[in-house]
């Protein structure tokens, strides 16, 4: 049985290949040759890499693999990510039962029916943004700046009770926190500013309550201001960066696959399934999910020892031919619901019902209102976010 003595295949993250939508070829090669293999991380430490759908699912569903980043051996993806997790800030990096106790304070806000009830408000936000984007006969804009980013930012502000007028401040903080090249100091400073802001906002809710999540957590009386501030930070950052990038990248992928775009235009009711397939195909959490073994566990042909880290590549898992035949093809008619773009196990994305609804509304509204939508620059000039923890495009100049 293979062990940690194996030589590392490459340093994570490996370079992308020619298709900017596909995970780097090195991971696909690992998936075929050595599905659970060894890699080197940014700091020279070694980690396991899981690439197949079955193995990734098994790790994420298994409580013997911990998400607690304070455990020795936890695989951090960059210096900045290690800084982000210093001091055990939120439940995304905790294990049950503590994780479950905190997550359950929020799951009530993401019940399918309650999220669905937000539909008219999100639709209005989408329409208002498009009204502005197309006002005065304008025929082009950067979709990221004018639609993809403001839409989820406005929605998460509304849910949390954060004033949207502060968006430039918190969007800049998240940009620094999610940039791969940011130093630990830069990430630490951006995180401190954001936490400080959310702590002050939480304190203010004690005297001026509203019907947002922060206020409700205050009223609950079980958490300190710092704990509520940390949860607010997680929701604010996770709540806008992800959906924003998923929206813009989806539009670009559709423009590059005209037959699929055409299918969706002719079958607007297919948007629900289309969003699942886009989530699978694009898997914007492209650097993988980290876990650390708390005891010896056999995974496929290898034995992972207690204290060894595993990076779960959900992007390659989502193109595993055993699970998704022709996985490199975007096929909006496929049943893609088993994708792992939101993770798996007890940490699976809390905000997924909201993300789905936002994506469905964003895509349906754009296609309906802008039938002539096209890319305004050569495809080669689009700047992809290989430099960020969440994949996407920095700008998306469109014309209509």
């Amino acid at each position: 049985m293979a062990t940690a003595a194996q030589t590392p295949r490459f340093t994570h993250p490996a370079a992308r290949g020619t298709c900017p939508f596909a995970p780097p070829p090195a991971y696909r090669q690992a998936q075929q040759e050595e599905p659970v293999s060894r890699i080197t991380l940014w700091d020279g430490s070694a980690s396991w890499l899981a690439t197949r759908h079955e193995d990734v699912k098994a790790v994420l569903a298994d409580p013997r693999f911990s998400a607690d980043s304070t455990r020795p051996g936890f695989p951090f993806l960059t210096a900045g990510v290690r800084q982000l997790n210093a001091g055990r800030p939120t439940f995304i990096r905790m294990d049950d039962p503590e994780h479950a106790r905190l997550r359950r304070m929020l799951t009530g806000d993401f019940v399918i029916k309650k999220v669905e009830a937000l539909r008219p408000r999100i639709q209005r936000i989408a329409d208002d943004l498009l009204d502005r984007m197309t006002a005065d006969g304008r025929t082009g804009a950067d979709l990221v700046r004018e639609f993809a980013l403001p839409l989820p930012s406005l929605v998460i502000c509304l849910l949390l009770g954060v004033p949207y007028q502060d968006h430039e401040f918190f969007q800049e903080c998240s940009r620094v926190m999610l940039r791969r090249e940011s130093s630990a100091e830069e990430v630490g400073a951006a995180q401190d500013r954001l936490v400080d802001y959310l702590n002050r906002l939480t304190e203010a809710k004690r005297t001026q309550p509203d019907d947002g999540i922060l206020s409700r957590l205050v009223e609950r009386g079980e958490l300190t201001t710092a704990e509520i501030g940390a949860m607010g930070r997680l929701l604010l950052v996770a709540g806008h960066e992800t959906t924003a990038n998923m929206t813009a990248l989806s539009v670009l992928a559709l423009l590059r696959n005209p037959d699929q775009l055409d299918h969706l235009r002719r079958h607007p009711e297919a948007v629900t399934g289309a969003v699942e397939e886009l989530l699978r195909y694009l898997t914007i959490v492209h650097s993988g999910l980290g876990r650390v073994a708390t005891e010896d566990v056999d995974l496929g042909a290898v034995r992972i020892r207690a204290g060894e880290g595993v990076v779960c590549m959900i992007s390659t898992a989502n193109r595993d031919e055993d699970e998704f035949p022709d996985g490199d093809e975007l096929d909006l008619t496929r049943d893609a619901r088993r994708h792992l773009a939101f993770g798996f196990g007890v940490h699976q994305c809390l905000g997924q019902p909201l993300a789905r609804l936002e994506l469905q509304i964003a895509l349906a509204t754009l296609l309906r209102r802008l039938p002539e939508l096209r890319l305004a620059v050569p495809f080669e000039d689009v700047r992809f976010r290989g430099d960020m923890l969440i994949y996407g495009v920095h700008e998306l100049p469109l014309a209509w």
Partner: protein
Amino acid sequence: MLVQIDQEKCCGAGHCVLAAPDVFDQRDEDGIVVLLDARPPAELHQAVQDAAAVCPAAAIQLDQAPDRA
């Protein structure tokens, strides 16, 4: 088919409600699964199987023995 749920394991992701809304619901206050129909009719079996397959927390158990159908 006999459906069983484990509310302790449930993490409130809501897949079951999307896949089989006649069989599963969520508690209003914390999104935890509620079983509406432990012996769903045959036409819902596929949807219930889909729900169990995508449940991230393995909180849905199915007993498909024919004598319990």
